[in-house]
């Protein structure tokens, strides 16, 4: 029983780590601001949520798990909102989206 929960938390942590690495590589390699915002916003939210759920399963039922659950809920609401505000500000300042055939910006 204990081993099953530990294996499950290990799987959650490794999948979350994979998503965070993919988000960072997309932040370096993609050609435009909007595509970088896409990679950063989605992959960070999902990876961080899965890593914290893995820590919650490892910890068990205690006060630490409640704090981690609050952190997951706050990140799940606030991180896409911050990225949306940044993209809205960039669109209002006149950053042109990238089309196929343009150079990297």
């Amino acid at each position, binding site marked *: 029983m204990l081993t099953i929960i530990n294996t499950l938390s290990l799987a959650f942590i490794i999948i979350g780590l994979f998503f965070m690495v993919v988000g960072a590589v997309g932040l370096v390699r993609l050609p435009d601001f909007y595509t970088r915002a896409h990679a*950063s916003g989605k992959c960070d939210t999902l990876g961080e949520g899965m890593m914290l759920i893995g*820590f919650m399963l490892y910890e068990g039922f205690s*006060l630490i798990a409640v704090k981690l659950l609050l952190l997951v809920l706050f990140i799940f609401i606030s*991180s896409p909102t911050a990225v949306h505000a940044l993209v809205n*500000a960039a669109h209002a300042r006149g950053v042109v989206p990238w089309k196929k055939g343009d150079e990297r910006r």
Partner: protein
Amino acid sequence: MYDIFYASMIILILTVFLCLYRVLAGPGVENRLIAVNTIGTKTIVLLVLIGFIYERPIFLDIAIIYAMINFIATIAIAKYLKRGCLC
């Protein structure tokens, strides 16, 4: 299990250096801002990992406060970029 925690800490620190390249070399203000936001969300996981490895649960409170400060700073800077003032 603690080996996994140390390994994920090392991988996250390498990921932070990948984002730091975008902060230093990115053209314009917006690329730098979104890279700083990404570094902030990785730092929250690093703080929780430090709290688990050294067995100090007080780092979870620091992680919650860091998440709130990161969100508020990003919203404030985005509003300043859009309007030109903080009104």
